[in-house]
């Protein structure tokens, strides 16, 4: 298998406050990889840096053989890297359809092609199809999450990154979101996702990395991590919080 995404010794900071230090991990083509860890471990910060929303203080990020360390976010999207951000960030005053159209912005496709790409996503998400002309801000949390995922797939990414896709959602919706992640992976897209719920995460992912206070403290296959004492600690850490 070949590397799709690698982070080597990446340090991230907000102003002078270093949040992540010496983060090193990789995602191979076709994998489903998870970053787990308790609240404040630096998972979202890491994802922001992967997408280019946060500048990298030091270290190197490469994607599909290209050094993207200081590449702005919109160019990373054009290389095939797509992030579903934490908190979904749908465009609240635009319809579901328009949100999806924006997801395919990078293709500069004709209105006809764009409409058929939107129809494809709406086919896959019947819940969204029913609300296609409603403003995204009026959707429920679960619908918004599906929209955010559907929107990200519109750019036909090689790697789709999901930041806390289960946040604030009920168990049924969470199960549905994870089955969507499996489906996306089955269709050949590589997946990297961040999750607080380690049980769910390790059931879905092939491999995982455990973050604690801005460092990678453990890594391995999901099977290995499930039995790792430090993972149990990180998971328990979440319960205590």
């Amino acid at each position, binding site marked *: 298998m070949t590397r799709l995404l690698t982070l080597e010794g990446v340090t991230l900071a907000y102003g002078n406050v270093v949040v992540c230090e010496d983060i090193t991990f990789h995602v191979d083509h076709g994998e489903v990889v998870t970053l787990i860890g308790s609240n404040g471990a630096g998972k979202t910060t890491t994802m922001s840096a992967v*997408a*280019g*929303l946060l500048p990298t203080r030091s270290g190197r990020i490469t994607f599909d053989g290209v050094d993207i360390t200081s590449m*702005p*976010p*919109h160019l990373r*999207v*054009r290389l095939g890297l*797509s*992030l579903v*951000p934490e*908190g979904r*960030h*749908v*465009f*609240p*005053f*635009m319809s579901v359809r*328009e949100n999806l*159209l*924006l*997801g395919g*912005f*990078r293709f*500069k496709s004709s209105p006809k092609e764009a409409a058929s790409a939107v129809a494809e996503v709406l086919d896959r998400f019947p819940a969204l199809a029913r609300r296609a002309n409603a403003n995204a801000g009026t959707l429920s949390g679960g619908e918004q999450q599906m929209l955010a995922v559907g*929107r*990200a797939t519109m*750019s036909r990414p090689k790697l789709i990154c999901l930041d806390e896709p289960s946040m604030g959602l009920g168990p049924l919706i969470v199960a549905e979101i994870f089955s969507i992640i499996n489906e996306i992976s089955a269709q050949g897209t590589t997946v990297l996702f961040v999750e607080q719920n380690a049980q769910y995460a390790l059931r879905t992912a092939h491999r995982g990395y455990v973050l604690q206070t801005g460092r990678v403290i453990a890594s391995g296959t999901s099977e290995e991590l499930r039995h790792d004492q430090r993972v149990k600690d990180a998971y328990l850490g979440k319960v205590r919080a």
Partner: protein
Amino acid sequence: MTLLQLVLNGLVQGSLYVIVALGLTLIFGVLVKINFAHAEFLMLAAFAGVVSIDTFNLSYGVSVLVATLVGASLGVAIEFGIFRPLRKRRTDELRPLVATVGVSILLQNLALLYFGPNPRQYQSPYMQKTIELGELYLSYQRAIVFVVAVAAICALFVFLRRTAPGRAMRAVSQDSDAASLMGINVSRIVLMTFVIGSALAGLGGGLLGPMLVIEPTVGANIIVLSFAIVVIGGFGNVNGTVIAGLLVGIIESLVTGYLEAGLSSLAIFGVLLLTLAVRPTGLIAERVEQNV
């Protein structure tokens, strides 16, 4: 004058205010920043129109085009000269605002230096001819102004609603980080916003010019009204700006017709205060609260 005549006059005047205020609204919507030099863009564009007629013997129509281009160029200049460098340095929110106040003062005084304090006349051959529609009278100039203003507003709406760059502009105004995750080059959208917004100020200068005396402070009065319109319409909201602009034009015309011209500002700012008291978000609230 009849009520209908006053409303018609108000609509014409209001459509112009809409053009100028929409420029401010677009820039505020996308950047959440105010360009205080917007008024001076209008003023310089009007002077450019005057010069292109007086010095270069161009037709009125071409002079409006020149005014629009001057506005657009000033938009490019202020983005590259002020807003982009300050964004790159990640300075606080207030600095660009204060910088544009500086640009405004600078441009006014440069105009004073170059064109002198004596008012100039923006010649238009359409000022004297009048159209009669039954009981209603409208000068050709006002008819042209209205048609062009409405066409520009419609074009802007089609652009924002139906085209990919327009949709991208709305996306940036609602959530610029999310927009960049869609592959949208946010910097380029901001530049585009300045070009369109400032071109509208220029167009406003070219259309309104013949009805005013052109002097270095000509932008100031109009811009104060435009700010009122932007606030009444719900800061950064395009639909609200159109409604508020027409409303302000009609109020001004009715107060001037039935009461006294001097009272129109009082009435408009009364409406502004009332809006702030009753509906602080403006007629139409469509700005995103910070998502955490």
